[in-house]
C-alpha cells in the first residue's frame, strides 16, 4: 500500500467513525441540516488536504472541528447570515406567552439568533464540552475572547428569553464566567 493509499484509508476510517458527531456539532452551529452537511463536507475536505501533515490522527477531529467552526463563521460573514431575523422573538416576555412554542423551542430559537461567533463559542463550550483553551483554539482567538463571547451569548440568551423563562432555563449562576 502506498503512502497515499494508506492516508486515504485512514481518512475514510476517520470519516466513518466521526462524521456523525461532526454533523451534530455543525448542525448546532448553523441550525439547518442541509447547511450543516455542506459545512461538514467542506470541513472534511480541508481535513483530507491536511491529512499528510496530521500524522497524529488523534488530532484530526480537533482539526475538523476547527474547520467546521471557522468555515461556519466565514460563511455567515460572507453571506450575511450572521444575524438571523429576530423580529419574532425580540421581546422575551412575549415568547413566554406563545402557547405553541415549547420551552425548548424558545431556547433553540434564541440560540440561533446569536451571532455566529457567539453561537459557535456556546456550542464548543457546552455541547462539545471543550475547555476555554480548546475553544479558543477552535475559534482561532484568545482565551479572553472566548470568555467574553460566551458571557455575551449567555446574557443575550437571558435577555431574549425574558426574566421568567430565563430564570428557569438559564439560572443566574450560569452566567458566571470563569475569570
Amino acid at each position: 500500500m502506498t503512502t497515499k493509499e494508506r492516508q486515504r484509508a485512514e481518512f475514510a476510517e476517520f470519516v466513518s467513525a466521526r462524521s456523525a458527531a461532526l454533523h451534530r456539532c455543525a448542525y448546532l452551529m448553523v441550525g439547518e441540516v442541509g447547511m450543516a452537511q455542506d459545512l461538514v463536507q467542506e470541513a472534511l475536505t480541508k481535513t483530507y488536504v491536511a491529512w499528510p501533515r496530521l500524522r497524529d490522527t488523534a488530532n484530526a477531529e480537533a482539526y475538523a472541528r476547527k474547520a467546521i467552526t471557522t468555515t461556519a463563521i466565514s460563511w455567515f460573514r460572507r453571506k450575511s447570515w450572521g444575524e438571523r431575523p429576530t423580529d419574532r422573538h425580540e421581546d422575551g416576555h412575549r415568547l413566554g406567552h406563545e402557547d405553541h412554542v415549547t420551552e425548548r423551542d424558545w431556547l433553540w430559537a434564541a440560540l440561533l439568533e446569536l451571532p455566529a461567533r457567539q453561537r459557535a463559542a456556546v456550542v464548543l463550550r457546552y455541547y462539545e464540552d471543550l475547555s476555554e483553551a480548546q475553544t479558543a483554539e477552535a475559534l482561532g482567538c484568545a482565551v479572553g475572547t472566548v470568555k467574553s463571547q460566551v458571557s455575551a451569548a449567555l446574557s443575550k440568551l437571558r435577555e431574549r428569553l425574558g426574566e421568567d423563562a430565563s430564570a428557569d432555563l438559564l439560572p443566574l449562576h450560569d452566567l458566571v464566567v470563569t475569570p
Partner: protein
Amino acid sequence: MTEKLQTLMREQADAVDFAAPDLDTMIAAGDRRVRHRRLGAAGGIAAVAAGVVLVAPFLTSDQRAVEPTGPTGAAPISWVDGTTLHEGARTTDLEFRPRAYVRTAGGYVLADGKGAVWSWQDGDRTLVGSTDARDLRLVSDEESGLAGWVSRDGSEYVVMDQLAGTITGYDAPAGTQPGDFAALDAGRAYWSGENGPVVVDLESLAETPVHGGRGTYLGDLEDDLVAVSGDQGVVIETLDGTTVLEPTNSYADLGYLSPDAHYYTWDADELQVYDVRSGERVSVDVGGRGFATGFDWLGTGTLAVLAAADADDSSVAELLVCEVPAGSCRQVAELGPFDSLTDSLVLPVGIPIDG
C-alpha cells in the same frame, strides 16, 4: 453549568439524521486542491527563472499568452511537456517521460515513472539512483548543484552535487518516507532525523534539531529560517528554536519563504503573505479572484501567483505577478482550464502534479 442548554443542544442534535458524507467527492475535491496548489508551485519556479514568454510552447487553441515576465539574467524557464524539456525558447527531446524533476545550478534531476533518477546536464542523461516510484519526491537548491531524494528502500538520504559530480548517501532512520527529505539550502539538508526534524550541515554532518519534533511536516529552509507544519498550521522559526512567525492559517499546506526570508506565503487557496518578522499579514489585491496561491518569489518583494476565478477544474488558470508590500498584481499569462494542465505537464517542483 447551563445544564438545560446542554440538554437542549444534545436533544436537538440527536433528533436529526444526517446522510453520510460523500467520501469520494471529498477526496476528489481535496486532490483537486492539492493539484492546483502544486500546479501553482511549479508555475512559480518557471516564472522566477524565466524572463521569457511563459506558456506559449504548450498553448492550446483556447489559450493565449499575455506578456512575458521575470527578472532578466535569471535561469531560463523550464517545464516538461511529455518527453520534451522546455528551457525558455529552447526545447530538447529527453527521450523518456519524466514524472517529476527539479532544477539546480548545474542542470536538472528527473525521476521517471519507475522511480529511476536521472541527471541531465548539457544534453547528457545519466542514471544516478532510484527512489520510490509510488511517491516521487525530489528536492534541490537552485543556487547550487545540490539535488536530493530518498533511496528506493528508504535506507538513505541521497544528495547529488551536479556541479561537483558527486553522489553521497546519508543513513536515514528506519521507516523514512520520500517526503521526509524536505529541502536543501546552502550546503545544508532539512530532513527527518532519528529524533525528529533536523538541519544537517552536509560537510561537517553537524545536526541542528528543529523544534516541533515528530508529528510535524517539514517545510522550507531559507536563510537560517525553517518552516515546520503541524496540526495548528505552519510556524517559522530560527534554527535555535525561536519562533519567528506563529501559525496563522491551519488550512494552508506549506509555502515559500522569500529569498531573504523577509516574507512567507502560504500554499493555500487564498493568497496569504506575511511579513515574517512583524507577523503582519500583507494585503495583496488579486482582483477578486476566488482562487489564488503564491507559489514562488521572483525576488524579494515580487511574488508569482497562480489564480483563477474559482478553484474548479474548468476555471482558467492565470499567472499573476504581485508586488509586496505594495499589494498590486498584474496578469502575466492565461494557461487554460486547470483540467487541461495536469495530463502531460511536469513542472520543476520535485513531485508529480498528481502525486
